[in-house]
């Protein structure tokens, strides 16, 4: 299958084409901030030309976008209205009546400072549902119609309908949805029980309002993009990456825009898992380090999701299923600084792209992580970004020296200190997400990507005693590769709130049947294998406030005991103890439908052993760069050719480099071999210390690490036995 993956980031648009003659073709061009769809369509034409195919031959498009994210974070969405239960006009404004900062008088409360719905557009309507779903006050339809008309007159183009307890009985929300269709047919509608049928009104209302807020913009973007693709001949289905790690069909993504808020980081996780699996590793830690932040995720044999109650974006709670990826302010641009109390800090602030690290010579004088790499000889000033940007070693040294001076450190000591501190921040975050949750990093492989991931991986793995590191080829576009490894995936949730002891199987089955029906409808028109349904129950000990997930697959003989035990076990895993005799409450049910997409890069199915072309990533250098500086192409990597794995061999270095490593805490300069990654074929064996250069990244193989290039182009390294 010929599949096109397009990952639009803030800076670059990464494009991959799989299933073509050369296996996988990669391409990269700058994102246009005015119209991200333009670069996407342009890039599609370019990559098709590189691969020698016509756009009409593409059979599936997979797309990751930050349009939804930007609309929310930049407060640039639609004029949105809210119709809500009378007496509860300000749930969106009061929130949980807690300040984000404990210790601050001058803070902003994001949902008060930038309301998703202005108070004048929050219209209360008489109605009330009470547990377990009875109508205590019937819907006042007259009032609802008046509210809709007022919103229409005010120019509101998207309406959220949020009634208390609608997750127990959606009748009133559905009716208001009909009334909107009748009285303001142009308006986008978001019903809270449809967006997420979860209890906790502030969180559900906000999620629904956020959906309403970003939906018109996301729909317009997708429509424009689809039209652009259609115009150049792309006729196949278009799927959009969601925060849950799966993709959604085009129309579904527009309708539930809130589900695509974290598509970028999710694609990185999926890519990490794919690379791990191709190389026989199921327990993984992914580390994606870019210019401003590092995304970290732990995959203990399965994808972990963030507890929805922990899920915030830009200060707004967003209840939508999302993979557990954490981002910390640690990247190439992170600034090193000394504060008034005399502490040496790195990040979280970043020098960004402008002025950027001091070594860029764009006027930045503050020392950054990238400057430290330059000082230590790890990043080569002459070959940065394939030589397109000359870095200044002098400026890097000046900047790094300045931060080391108060501590009487020389420039190399200070550079090492910067790296140690930024690495320690990442190590701590990985610990928090692995060891604290009962997953042992020593049983995992680290998948390192992003432009800066391969620079830091060895030292981080060392600290965490991670035995294996996987370096995928073209680490700068790994997230795009994740798109090719996704499944179609939808979730449905129902809050039920019943004690496990007295819960009736029939009732649970009925809820699951409803969700199954809803999910199947969302698969309408999808060509592919019948979706696999997964069922879960979110439970807690009666009286607790946070739920944990228990499996709930078959409700046959003994299901209560099994579910109870599953919950106890989960509680013990998460918190270290259980309350054996305490009653368990089922708070909500969740169903996930997954249908595989046959778009994986060819090597995936065969475990990387046979003669598939492996990630013989084709460089489109010549033609893709024709746009001068505007287009940078992915450089070739892992040219394993079609002959598959080759015998283990020691490759010839392309040169050498002077690199500083820490030895007993002191800097030690060593001359190490330098390799060009595009010249490393499958079977090439490397011994650290050495440097591997590629177009969008530099890889530092530290002393004590060695490994081989795998058939898929991944460099797999292991810590040497000591």
């Amino acid at each position: 299958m010929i599949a096109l993956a397009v990952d639009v980031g803030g800076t670059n648009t990464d494009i991959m084409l799989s299933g073509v003659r050369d296996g996988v073709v990669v391409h990269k061009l700058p994102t246009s901030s005015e119209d991200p769809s333009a670069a996407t369509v342009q890039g599609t034409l370019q990559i098709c030309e590189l691969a020698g195919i016509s756009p009409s031959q593409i059979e599936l498009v997979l797309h990751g976008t930050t349009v939804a994210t930007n609309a929310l974070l930049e407060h640039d969405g639609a004029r949105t209205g809210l119709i809500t239960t009378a007496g509860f006009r300000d749930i969106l404004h009061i929130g949980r009546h807690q300040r984000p900062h404990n210790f601050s008088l001058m803070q902003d409360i994001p949902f008060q400072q930038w309301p998703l719905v202005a108070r004048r557009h929050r219209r209360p309507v008489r109605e009330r549902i009470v547990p377990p779903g009875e109508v205590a006050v019937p819907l006042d339809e007259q009032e609802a119609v008046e509210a809709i008309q007022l919103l229409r007159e005010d120019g509101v183009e998207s309406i959220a309908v949020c009634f208390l307890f609608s997750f127990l009985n959606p009748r009133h929300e559905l009716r208001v949805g009909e009334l909107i269709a009748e009285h303001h047919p142009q308006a986008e509608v978001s019903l809270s029980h449809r967006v997420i049928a979860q209890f906790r009104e502030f969180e559900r209302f906000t999620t629904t309002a956020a959906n309403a807020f970003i939906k018109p913009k996301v729909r317009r973007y997708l429509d424009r993009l689809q039209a652009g693709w259609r115009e150049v001949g792309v006729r196949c289905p278009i799927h959009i990456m969601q925060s849950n790690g799966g993709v959604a069909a085009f129309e579904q993504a527009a309708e539930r825009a809130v589900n695509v808020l974290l598509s970028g980081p999710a694609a990185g996780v999926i890519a990490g898992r794919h690379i791990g699996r191709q190389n026989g590793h199921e327990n993984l830690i992914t580390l994606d380090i870019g210019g401003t932040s590092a995304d970290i995720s732990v995959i203990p044999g399965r994808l972990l999701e963030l507890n929805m109650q922990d899920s915030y974006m830009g200060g707004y709670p967003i209840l939508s299923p999302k993979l557990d990826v954490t981002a910390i302010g640690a990247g190439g641009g992170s600034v090193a600084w000394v504060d008034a109390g005399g502490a040496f800090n790195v990040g979280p602030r970043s020098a960004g792209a402008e002025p950027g690290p001091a070594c860029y010579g764009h006027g930045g004088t503050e020392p950054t992580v990238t400057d430290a790499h330059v000082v230590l000889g790890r990043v080569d000033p002459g070959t940065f970004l394939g030589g397109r940007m000359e870095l200044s070693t002098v400026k890097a040294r000046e900047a790094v020296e300045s931060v080391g001076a108060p501590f009487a450190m020389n420039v190399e000591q200070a550079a090492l200190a910067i790296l140690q501190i930024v690495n320690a921040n990442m190590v701590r975050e990985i610990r928090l997400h692995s060891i604290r949750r009962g997953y042992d990093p020593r049983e995992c492989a680290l998948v390192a990507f992003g432009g800066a991931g391969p620079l830091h991986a060895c030292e981080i793995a060392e600290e965490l005693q991670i035995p294996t590191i996987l370096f995928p080829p073209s680490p700068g576009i790994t997230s795009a590769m994740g798109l090719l490894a996704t499944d179609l995936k939808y979730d449905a949730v129902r809050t039920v709130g019943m004690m496990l002891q007295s819960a009736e199987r029939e009732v649970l089955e009925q809820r699951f049947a409803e969700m199954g029906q809803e999910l199947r409808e969302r698969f309408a028109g999808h060509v592919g294998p019948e979706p696999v349904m997964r069922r879960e129950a979110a439970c807690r000990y009666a009286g607790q406030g946070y739920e944990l997930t228990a499996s709930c697959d078959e409700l046959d003989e003994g299901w209560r005991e099994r579910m109870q035990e599953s919950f106890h076990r989960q509680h013990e895993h998460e918190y270290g103890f259980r309350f054996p005799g305490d009653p368990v409450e089922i708070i909500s049910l969740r169903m996930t439908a997954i249908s595989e997409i046959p778009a994986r890069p060819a090597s995936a199915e065969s475990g990387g052993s046979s003669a598939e072309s492996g990630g013989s990533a084709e460089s489109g250098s010549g033609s893709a760069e024709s746009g001068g500086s505007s287009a940078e192409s992915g450089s070739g990597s892992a040219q394993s050719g079609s002959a598959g794995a080759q015998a283990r061999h020691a490759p010839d270095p392309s040169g050498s480099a002077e690199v500083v490593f820490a030895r007993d805490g002191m800097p030690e300069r060593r001359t190490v071999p330098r390799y060009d990654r595009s010249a490393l074929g499958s079977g090439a064996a490397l011994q650290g210390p050495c440097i591997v250069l590629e177009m969008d990244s530099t890889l530092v193989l530290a002393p004590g690490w060695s490994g081989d290039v795998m058939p898929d182009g991944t460099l797999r390294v292991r810590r040497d036995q000591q």
Partner: protein
Amino acid sequence: MSTAPEQTVDPVLLQIIGGELGSIAKEMAHQLIRSSYSVLIRESEDMGCALLNTRYEEIAESDNTPFHVGSLVAYTKGMMQTVEERGIELRPGDVLAHNHPYLGASHSLDIGVIAPIFWEGELVAFSANTAHHLDIGGAQPGGTIDLFDMYAEGRIFNATFLVREGQRDENMWRFFTDNNRAPRQVIGDLECQVAAARHGVRRFEQLMAKHGSETVRLYSEALIDYSERMLRAEIEKIPDGEYRAEGWLDDDGVTRDVPERIGVKVVISGSEVSVDLSESPPQRPNALNTPYGGSTCVGVYSLFRTLLLDTFLSEKYIPANSGGFRPITVIAPEGTIFNPRFPAATQIRFNPINRVADLILQALAPVIPDRATAGNSAQLNGMYMSGVYPDGSYWITIEVDEGSYGGRPGKDGMDAVDCLSANIRNQPIEDIEMHLPFRFHRYELIEREFGHGRWRGGTSAVRDYAFLTPAQVTTESERHADIDPPPGVFGGTPGRPGRFWHLHNDGTRDRLYSKVNAHRFAEGERLVIEGVTSGGYGSPLEREPVRVLHDYLDDLISSEQAEEIYGVLIRDGEVDEEATRRRRESLRAATAQRER
């Protein structure tokens, strides 16, 4: 005090160990919040976790609720006083409970759970946490105002073993279970606290195993010194001098409608600050007193951290540890409400000290106008509620209801949030109604009645619900009397006092005092809580007309208010610029006239 970094300390290791210590405290807190039962722990995070050294100084703290900043210092110190007096030998694997208000506890409802940490047989540190419990078997369910003395508050633990060398003291657990109205939840929470304390022990041991106990000790000291330096540097920016402010409490909860005065004197001298509370009311004959070590000092520390190390304004996180307390002295004579004499009851202790925090702000406002706010609500509404289901079983819950913040330089005040030392989360209505006999009628912003100004005061919320079983309510509140609403500053107008209403089934209503003990509601009767709104900052005539327009369109102010208070005339949903200019001129002239 040295202002340069310590030469012997490796700055890299300082970051690494500091980060680890901070994350241990956070991990303890996460575990406790997630697994606990009490709404005050799980939803409101009315709890704190810390690691302390053997001088009972905090090395790291979890930073959950401002009002627990540093309280574990007093708990641990008090507990160890008893341990030493009684000649108890602490051993590895011990876990103790402690809530004695005259030996460091914040109040008896907050039970401290403390585990000593040993290294090679030597006591090197403590892992501690404290959390607010639903019930400790006192005179009434939850909390009580009308208490004769400390003994009436409920069960008092004084360095009491819950676990001895890894073995649970089952007798103690059974005793507490038998003396509690909500044993399943309370015992569950205590279990969570023990688990969290042990987690801290384990993680601290790992840290010592990695870096060596001496290194961890040395760097812990360096971190405390560091936080101290950071705070001192900020105190030094305030001009030396003596600053005063005064405020009023509604009454002492016994003699109604007789306000009590609090005078606060703040003395800044170099990098030191002292807060003198000598002009405070005498201690009260009920539970409305504030324990000195665990609460009075804590409220003051918390305010200075908020004011001087505002985490919104600085990108740098200053580790929360005892270094932040060293430059601050709190003077409160024994026998006053801020330092009651044993055995006065102290269960309901929060509001007076939150008022003190705000008075410190008001006192300093003239010298730090770019940092200070107009008057804040500076109280909280703590509602201790309980009832009995038809089957005879208890329901007990505690709710903390919001206040607001005064207008700020460049910003309106925050609406409907907890104030200063309180920062607690409400419970979702959808959670409450699914689990407790409540029916909500309203939860909305208060319109029109808040401080006006160039930067308007935050408004608060009105919360209205019916009890579906007979219920009793004890209220912990302040600032319902008209004498002292949150003041406006620089020409802003004051906020509005709070109110509690009892709505009867026949449609009549009574206004309740801010502090009532075990007030009874019949089935179906309603409680209405109106929060305190805050003062405005600067003259309303200086407010941008478009902001006034938005407040009007948002139904926060009426068109009359727009015209009379703000001098803004609105026609057809737009500002009438010319009429507004004229109106503002004449209002200014009238003000000038009055002032002459």
